[in-house]
């Protein structure tokens, strides 16, 4: 710890230096204003690809902080590892947490708030949606890395064969599905019951609020009216055969794409890589286009996926950790160093340009996918919040949606998911309205 007098002198010096060197820009003064010196070792856990290179780039760019990178499993295994590590006090200083999992870590008191380490100026670099998802209960708990807008990818040749335009409303989407099925025999989209945040995004777009933190209790709206409307639409399309219930990223899903049985994918900006890697040898170059989600009439832009960086509560070096997180999320060097790791649409909007340059397969698609990303991301967040334990909702969805398909009952299914979620949250001691 610094002694108060030394800090005072330090601050006075800084003020003097800042006053005299104001013309040089704020960069020179910034480090000394922080409450504790940002030096030392920072252990960084992530499941994202190429993050070792980013850590290396940070180490090369300065001498005060040494980042040690460790790769961890993605998905539930990774969160379990992180959660237990924080409990056992051997957690990293910087962890990668997806938006939907962040409130779970916050309400379990496993993270350190970043308010003391991150300036308003830094926060202002992030777009509204991503910022609203990392600020909970009046504190900033993480900085957002990417903010992938939910969107649709179509096989343009199949749409043309069916004589339909890119649908702009869900009504048109439903009709396009019928036409595509009649003319080409392909289905227009898959229903991905395996990804709970997938359907959440679709409900979010229609103004549903699955979770809302009230004054002192949570409100759960998984079965609310907008959500029911979305369920009804997808059930109709499942019944008609224009949508097929198949888990995403499975062999069956891939085979349908490769063999042209899938005329579209409801995904996100990052789906570009998922599609490219699956169909690049299937002669589908120049056949796929990116498009905004069809509209329900409101201007809501949901995210599907996306990660944040947070500092576990047990970190002994939060100042240095926050410094590194700032680099990860706002420095062009960090994006450049990661190289071509997919079409990342970043929360700090100014950096997307850098990611676009690093991405080498934009030409595979028939339209300007980056322009579509911008359009798709343009909209409000509608105060969407993820719940204090989305794992409960995810598990409930997997349990309930076993017979999703033609003649299923999505509305009833989601009513059951709602019930199980409320039960689970109450069991963990939280108050639910």
């Amino acid at each position, binding site marked *: 710890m610094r002694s108060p007098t030394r800090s005072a002198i330090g601050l006075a010096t800084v003020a003097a230096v800042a006053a005299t060197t104001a013309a040089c820009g704020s960069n020179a003064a910034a480090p000394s204003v922080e409450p504790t010196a940002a030096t030392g070792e920072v252990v960084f856990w992530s499941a994202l690809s190429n993050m070792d290179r980013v850590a290396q780039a940070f180490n090369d760019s300065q001498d005060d902080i040494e980042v040690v990178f460790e790769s961890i499993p993605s998905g*539930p*295994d990774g*969160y*379990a590892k992180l*959660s*237990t590590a924080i409990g056992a006090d051997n957690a990293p200083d910087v962890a990668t947490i997806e938006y939907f999992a962040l*409130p*779970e870590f*916050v*309400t*379990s*008191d496993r993270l350190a708030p970043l308010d003391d380490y991150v300036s308003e100026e830094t926060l202002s670099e992030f777009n509204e949606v991503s910022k609203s998802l990392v600020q*909970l*209960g*009046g*504190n900033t708990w993480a900085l957002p890395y990417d903010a992938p807008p939910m969107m649709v990818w179509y096989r343009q040749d199949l749409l043309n064969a069916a004589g339909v335009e890119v649908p702009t409303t869900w009504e048109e989407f439903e009709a396009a599905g019928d036409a595509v099925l009649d003319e080409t025999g392909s289905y227009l989209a898959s229903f991905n*019951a*395996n990804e709970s945040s997938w359907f959440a995004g679709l409900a979010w777009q229609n103004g549903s609020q699955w979770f809302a*933190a*009230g004054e*002192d*209790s*949570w409100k759960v709206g998984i079965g609310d009216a907008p959500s029911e409307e979305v369920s009804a639409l997808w059930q109709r399309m499942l019944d008609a055969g224009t949508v097929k*219930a198949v*888990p995403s990223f*499975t*062999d*069956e899903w891939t*085979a*349908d794409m490769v*063999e042209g*049985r899938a005329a579209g994918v409801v995904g996100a900006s990052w789906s570009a890589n998922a599609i490219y890697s699956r169909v690049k040898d299937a002669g589908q170059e120049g056949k796929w286009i990116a498009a905004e989600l069809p509209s329900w009439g409101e201007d809501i832009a949901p995210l599907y996926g996306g990660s944040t960086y947070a500092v576990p509560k047990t970190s002994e070096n939060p100042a240095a950790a926050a410094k590194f997180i700032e680099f990860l999320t706002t420095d062009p060097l960090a994006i450049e160093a990661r190289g071509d790791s997919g079409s990342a649409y970043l929360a700090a909007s100014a950096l997307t340009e850098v990611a676009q340059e690093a991405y080498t397969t934009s030409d595979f698609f028939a339209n300007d996918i980056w322009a579509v990303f911008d359009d798709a991301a343009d909209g409000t967040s509608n105060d969407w919040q993820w719940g*204090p*334990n989305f*794992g*409960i909702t*995810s*598990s409930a969805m*997997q*349990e309930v*949606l*076993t*017979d*999703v398909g033609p003649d299923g009952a999505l509305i009833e299914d989601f009513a059951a998911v709602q019930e199980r979620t409320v039960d*689970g949250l109450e*069991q*963990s*001691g*939280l*108050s639910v309205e």
Partner: protein
Amino acid sequence: MTLMKPAARVRSRARHRDLGGGGRTAALFLAPFFALFLLTMIGPVIYSLGLSLFATKKSGLGFGSSPEVVFVGIENFVAVLSSESFLAGFARVAIYALLYLPTMIGGALVLSLLLDTAAALFKRAFQLLLFLPHAVPGVIAALIWVYLYTPGVSPLVRALESGGISVNFFSAELVLPAMVNIAVWEWTGFNVIVIFTALQALPREVIEAARVDGAGPFRTALSIKLPLIAPAIGVALLFTSIGALQLFTEPAILATASRAVTPTYVPNMWAYDAAFNRLDLNQAAAASIIIAVVAGVVSYFITRINTKGGRA
């Protein structure tokens, strides 16, 4: 000791060599086992017992306050046992066992009896071939079979379709038999080795006596060999039943491809889901203890049936 009379000392030394000396040597050899056993088995069991009696409770919205760890007694056990999905998991395991045990043990028995007949050719080659699937790690086996079950990808499904049979192995009805099939493929060879070894150890004079008495190979197998290898079958049955209760790999891998396999499909997956998806270690501990107790009870009854059968 030193005050003992010579004769007594001799006797005592003799006894000593049997019990004390042997005991010491045995203890020396067993110590590493027990040390590891305590560390990796008993320790965790005690730890989970402790975990299962507590709960981590959040409050209000959960923001800004630390969750409390409170003693809840048997509340976790009640919650686990009243969970519909946990009980459904046991029902699935029961159906699985009903399909799996007779198919696998029956198959292994028939194959080993066939191998044991004098007429069988290439015994070694067949033994090796039957055993080969068991050499494939369980996860890999499940992945291979998922590929073979996947519609649109699998040559098997395609061949059936071209023959006019359309099956969806991932449907709610067929996914359990599909798991049984993977397990049968994986374990039959192993149990053939166990039973065949028992058959090889049978006294040849008994079988010769049967032949002299006019029993054909069929009769010999049914009336002579089968009763004599009952203990070996019992052991195979015991291990297989416990294995069935611990069913995890096959459904966990199939869950990635089939919607019909939920994250809580079998009790072990329920515990895994509680620990790693819902992040509730306390309920996961309670569920694990319940599974262990059930496994203990099942093996107790099977060993009892075995010993009774052996005496009769």
